[in-house]
């Protein structure tokens, strides 16, 4: 099973590395990438400064695997990768990176959206929103 969870934020250097790794796959003509970035939302006038992610990893990993399988079944893609942060990710930093590649562009947009929506809906990941006064709330996906 492919490793999805990474400790802390996803760096732009990591993303660049993954792009480079696909340049030898010359049957690929199109990549689509999704990056989830921690937003400095205001919650009752207090700014979110970070999200601390936890996950039920033993349940989450098989679900990521099922999502991958279903994306390959539905769309003619060459490869896909999912990376999700655990631990603290500060505002402006990246917590989710989905990378879809295919010979032709038409499928990569829908495959990307489907994957992101499935992750949001099905994967047991939890997010503690740390506010500027060190209080916190709990993030819920909508």
């Amino acid at each position, binding site marked *: 099973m492919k490793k999805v969870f990474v400790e802390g934020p996803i760096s732009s250097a990591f993303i660049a590395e993954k792009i480079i790794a696909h340049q030898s796959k010359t049957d690929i003509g199109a990549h689509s990438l999704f990056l*989830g970035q921690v937003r400095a939302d205001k919650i009752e006038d207090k700014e979110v400064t970070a*999200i601390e*992610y*936890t*996950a*039920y990893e*033993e*349940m989450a990993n*098989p679900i990521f695997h099922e999502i991958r399988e279903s994306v390959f079944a539905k769309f003619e893609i060459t490869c896909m990768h999912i990376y*999700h942060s655990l631990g603290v990710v500060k505002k402006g930093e990246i*917590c*989710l990176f989905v990378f879809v590649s295919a010979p032709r562009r038409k499928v990569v947009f829908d495959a990307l959206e489907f994957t*992101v929506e499935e*992750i*949001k*809906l*099905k*994967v*047991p*990941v*939890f*997010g*503690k929103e740390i506010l500027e006064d060190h209080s916190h709330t*709990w*993030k*819920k*996906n909508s």
Partner: protein
Amino acid sequence: MAKLLYFGQVAEIANRHSEELPIEEMSIADFRIWLERKIPELTFVSYQISANQQLHCEAFMLTNDMEIAILPPFAGG
């Protein structure tokens, strides 16, 4: 012994991340009643229950050998 796991806001409310204890065979619906008697503050939050890392319908029977997790709303991404 069943293994109970608590995550996110549920872990915060229950003030624990896991515990092992014997449970009687019961449906997920009945487990909710049992759990909310044990930790009344859970009455006020929504949560899902997984058994052995999978979600099931409310009628699914939980047994004493299972890993049962109490999961607050998902917040991935």
